[in-house]
């Protein structure tokens, strides 16, 4: 499982540029289900189970990750950029980036020695940063990169005790769990979607859900764990290693109360996502068509949307168990 997750995380797939991740996911699932790719680039899969379900269930994970898009080149060969999805400036400064999996660069800014007083302690505006690829002029830079190219912050995938550290844990963890569900024999037929453009407004999930018209949905995600010393106890949201985070409400969704209760009462290690913050594909899914009863199961993840996110391998195993439990319960009718 760790090897597959490592492989998934190290592929670059900024929103709108998910091709490489999609190809790899298809290579993993193609022998286990029927699948097609829609106009946006979502993978829509149908998994045949032993039995026909009482409810049509869709299980979703998103392919894309946060990153960077090159917007212009200065006369002296530096690249200006916009962030794709939410990335804090401190996570960008003085980091190595890979542009189109090809060109090395470094996100640079004015070194602190050349700043005075208070500005030494304040994160600068993101738009004051730029990427240095070593080019000396605009024309030289444009021989190496194109306007519109995507870049990601590079990172090693490392195992730290029971935990892992990597880029793109949001949401390659979800992809891993969904691939695992597809690879095993299923009790009931279900749909699986690997969706694009989640980080730029939950967009892929809109068309995928429209196409499937499910009765119920399970979103597999990674969510903010703020279990760090600077967070007060009531601001920790959820804790790494303390079980799957189950959402009751966030900025995009009010989740199905019965499903929430069923997940929390499952006996599988889990915890409430104890904040009304953030959002995920559920926001698009639960409002699709005539409405879809939706639950989100997430791996608690520290430093989410940075190149050094940390999550627990045990939480991920529990996420697979809980996803299977909810899928079978909803499809089979034991979860009302």
């Amino acid at each position: 499982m760790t090897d597959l997750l490592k492989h998934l995380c190290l592929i670059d797939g900024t929103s709108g540029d998910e091709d490489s991740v999609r190809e790899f996911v298809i290579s993993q699932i193609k022998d286990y289900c029927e699948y097609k790719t829609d106009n946006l680039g979502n993978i829509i899969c149908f998994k045949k189970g032993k039995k026909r379900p009482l409810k049509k269930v869709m299980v979703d994970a998103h392919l894309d990750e946060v990153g960077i898009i090159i917007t212009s080149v200065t006369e002296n060969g530096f690249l200006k950029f916009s962030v794709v999805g939410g990335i804090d400036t401190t996570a960008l400064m003085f980091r190595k980036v890979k542009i189109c999996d090809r060109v090395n660069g470094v996100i640079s800014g004015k070194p602190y020695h050349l700043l005075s007083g208070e500005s030494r302690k304040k994160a600068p505006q993101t738009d004051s940063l730029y990427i240095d690829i070593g080019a000396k002029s605009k024309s030289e830079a444009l021989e190496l990169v194109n306007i519109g190219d995507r870049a990601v912050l590079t990172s090693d995938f490392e195992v730290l005790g029971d935990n892992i550290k990597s880029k793109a844990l949001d949401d390659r963890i979800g992809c891993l769990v969904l691939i695992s569900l597809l690879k095993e024999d299923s009790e009931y037929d279900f749909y699986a979607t690997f969706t694009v453009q989640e980080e730029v407004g939950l967009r892929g999930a809109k068309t995928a859900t429209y196409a499937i018209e499910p009765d119920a949905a399970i979103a597999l995600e990674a969510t903010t764990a703020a279990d760090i010393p600077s967070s007060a106890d009531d601001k920790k949201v959820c804790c790494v290693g303390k079980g799957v985070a189950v959402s009751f409400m966030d900025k995009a969704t009010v989740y199905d109360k019965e499903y929430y209760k069923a997940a929390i009462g499952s006996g599988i290690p889990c915890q409430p996502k104890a904040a009304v913050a953030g959002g995920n594909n559920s926001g698009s899914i639960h409002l699709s068509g005539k409405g879809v009863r939706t639950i989100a199961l997430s791996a608690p993840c520290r430093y989410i949307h940075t190149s050094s996110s940390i999550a627990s391998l045990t939480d991920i195993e529990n996420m697979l168990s809980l996803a299977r439990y909810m899928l079978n319960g909803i499809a089979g009718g034991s979860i009302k």
Partner: protein
Amino acid sequence: MEIKDLLFTLSGKTGIGSITEAQKTAYEILGEYLEPQITDDFNVIGFLSGKSDYAIMLDAHIDQIGFVVTDIDENGFLTVSNAGGIDIRALPSRAVTVHGKQKITAVFCSTPPHLANGDTEYTDITEIKLDTALGEKAKEIVSIGDYVTFTGDCFPIANGRVCGPSFDDRAGVACVLELAKRLSGKELPVNVVFCLSNGEELGLRGVRTAAFSVEPNEAIAIDVTFGDGLNISADEACGLGEGGMIGISPVLDKKVSQKLISVAKENNIPYGLEVMGSKTGTNADMLGISRKGVKAATLSIPLRNMHTAVEILDLGDLSAVCDLLESYILSGGVSND
């Protein structure tokens, strides 16, 4: 070894406090040309004899910036203090190496999105905890007083430029080692001292004892200086690819600076000038006032993103620095003036 390989090899080693991987590597490389020694305070020093009693010291500092662990909590979070100048703005979510009973990776905490107010400000490094992700087991591996250093690989970017951690001042160290290679076996007009000094980032410490014991007549500190960038003005920084920067400052010896300039001109070696109104912030400040005084100079390599894990320099500048130092030594420095 090519200068790039030399730089990458040196930058991959750790040299901070009592961790002396970098010194051992430099010692082995220097040992190919002469008989160096590692002193009790972890300076690496070697000599090549010349025809006169006059001695010129080529100095680069071998230590790097980092952190030291001051507290370990029961959840595996460390409090650290900086060892050398650190840009705290760029620490959150950065992975670093903790040199405990074994080397482990840890990540500086970043403000979670729901708690960020869009105006991130840090008052002190001790506020930014370091996450080992090992929980209570962290204490089995990490002890108070352990060192922490930036993690990062060395890699090329365009135009013969390269990026990596600790180029400050492994770039200078690479030049000093290259000079030992170039000058060994040659007939030298003066004695040459190769000094890779420890503890520069903590207050020019190693060079103090090194200069005291060696007593050179003249010394050149080979260090890095601020490289250019976007919205960094020409009076704040030096362009990359224009050669080494010869220092001119009231605390430096005027004749040595002038001689460096004239040697560069005579041999068509690219160079620039770095004019400073007072102290240079390099080992030269300490060298000048060692014992009865040493004629001190600086020759600096422009470096972008100084004191980060992604320092950038131009390999052409390293070659220019080596060319200039070689010609300068062979000219005898200012020994005849």
